[in-house]
């Protein structure tokens, strides 16, 4: 009996073979695992010397704040950064992947990466997955052709804008931009405007909160201002400290620091002929 195995070429994109099974499981009472979204405020604007990106730092899982200080401004290239809104895993994975592709591209071409290259790679990847990769991005950078700012939607469409906002807090932030943005802002004015837009998202949108992260990109120089503003400090911390009820059993009062065990293995890596 001959076994004929048909080698199907990989089609790319997601395989939806298990959807029927998942529906059946849900009907039988299984709770689907929820995913971490970054209900977010992310913004970007072009100022006279380059691009400024800003983001809040709250990651939510439904109504719960899962991370009070997450990093939403992702590295793509030394001169290109990207803010991500949507599913946290998706934004991180997609920016990581494109960053890796751009590193290889830089080796092969010997040139600085261009923002439009990152844009094309991101949008074609997102389009291939037909919106199932839930990543809404604000991409900004300065390359040989000048400063650029783009927004990328989960389905793969893009916009090129002088100022942009994305995420659940985008309306609050856009209100600030629309009233106060003008061309030719200086660095300090730009940073203050971005911080104000993010603060507006933090205070007026439930999905955004905690601190303000800023990234300033100019020709040949980048400034990553992590936690540039912290308008939500933890104000009440009890000085009495924590006490445990008398019923609590104390098992160990000695703290043993871990010591590194260094083992010297004889023989090295050199191969024998």
């Amino acid at each position, binding site marked *: 009996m001959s076994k004929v195995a048909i080698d199907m070429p990989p089609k790319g994109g997601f395989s939806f073979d298990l959807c029927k099974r998942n529906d059946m499981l849900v009907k039988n009472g299984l709770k689907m695992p929820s995913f971490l979204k970054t209900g977010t405020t992310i913004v970007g604007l072009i100022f006279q010397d380059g691009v400024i990106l800003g983001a809040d730092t709250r990651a939510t899982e439904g109504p719960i704040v899962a991370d009070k200080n997450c990093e939403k401004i992702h590295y793509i290239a030394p001169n290109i950064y990207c803010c991500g809104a949507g599913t946290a895993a998706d934004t991180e994975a997609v920016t*990581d*992947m494109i960053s*890796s592709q751009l*590193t*290889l591209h830089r*080796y*092969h071409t010997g040139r600085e990466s261009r923002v439009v290259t990152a844009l094309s790679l991101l949008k074609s990847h997102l389009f291939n997955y037909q919106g199932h990769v839930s990543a809404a991005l604000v991409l900004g950078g300065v390359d040989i052709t000048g400063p650029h700012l783009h927004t990328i939607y989960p389905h793969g469409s893009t916009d090129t804008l002088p100022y942009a906002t994305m995420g659940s807090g985008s309306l609050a932030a856009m209100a600030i931009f629309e009233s106060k943005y003008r061309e030719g802002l200086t660095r300090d004015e730009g940073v203050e405007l971005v911080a104000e837009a993010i603060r507006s998202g933090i205070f007026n949108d439930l999905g955004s909160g905690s601190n303000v992260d800023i990234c300033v990109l100019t020709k040949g120089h980048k400034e990553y201002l992590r936690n540039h503003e912290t308008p939500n400090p933890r104000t009440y911390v009890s000085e009495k400290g924590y006490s445990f009820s008398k019923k609590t059993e104390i098992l160990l009062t000695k703290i043993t620091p871990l010591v590194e065990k260094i083992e010297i293995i004889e023989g*090295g*890596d*050199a*191969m024998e*002929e």
Partner: protein
Amino acid sequence: MGDSQYSFSLTTFSPSGKLVQIEHALTAVGSGQTSLGIKASNGVVIATEKKLPSILVDEASVQKIQILTPNIGVVYSGMGPDSRVLVRKSRKQAEQYHRLYKEPIPVTQLVRETAAVMQEFTQSGGVRPFGVSLLVAGFDDKGPQLYQVDPSGSYFSWKASAMGKNVSNAKTFLEKRYTDDMELDDAVHTAILTLKEGFEGQISGKNIEIGIIGADKKFRVLTPSEIEDYLQEVE
């Protein structure tokens, strides 16, 4: 000779236990332009002759020494196009490693993976071995390292090594000159002197290439003017 009957098929051993195609590949390497590498106490230097087939060739466009990661560089002796394929594969492997483990690939790992690729081409159907030997220079947590990878896929760690046309003279010269506590600048001078030994014609910044990596762990290829400075120091 009995061996010659077995030299057509790569995947067949000859009666003397050799894979003759690999021997031929090593011959191809041996007729390539001289390249060498020296491991100093605080860095590594790799260098090669850059003899172009005609004066009409735009020598600024030719780059034999390539960077694989920010802290690893490579030079070859043998067939240039084969080395390009290996450089491309190695860069990709290094990047994949970085994506998976979020740390820069250790030099030994990259050498091992490159050697594995070269070995694949000695045990597959319808392909031929790579006609290059590579000298991989890197600086990671274990310090400066220099590896040679052969067409068979075997690799060796060297303190100093040479490959290509003038290999025996160059190695003898290096054996005499090498000291364990050599610093990077001394190593560059020694590399230049070694290349000069077998060089036909006038040596200059335009017909040799030098790549160095120091304690800053950043691999870079020296510019022709920097090479000229070193050449003047050597005079």
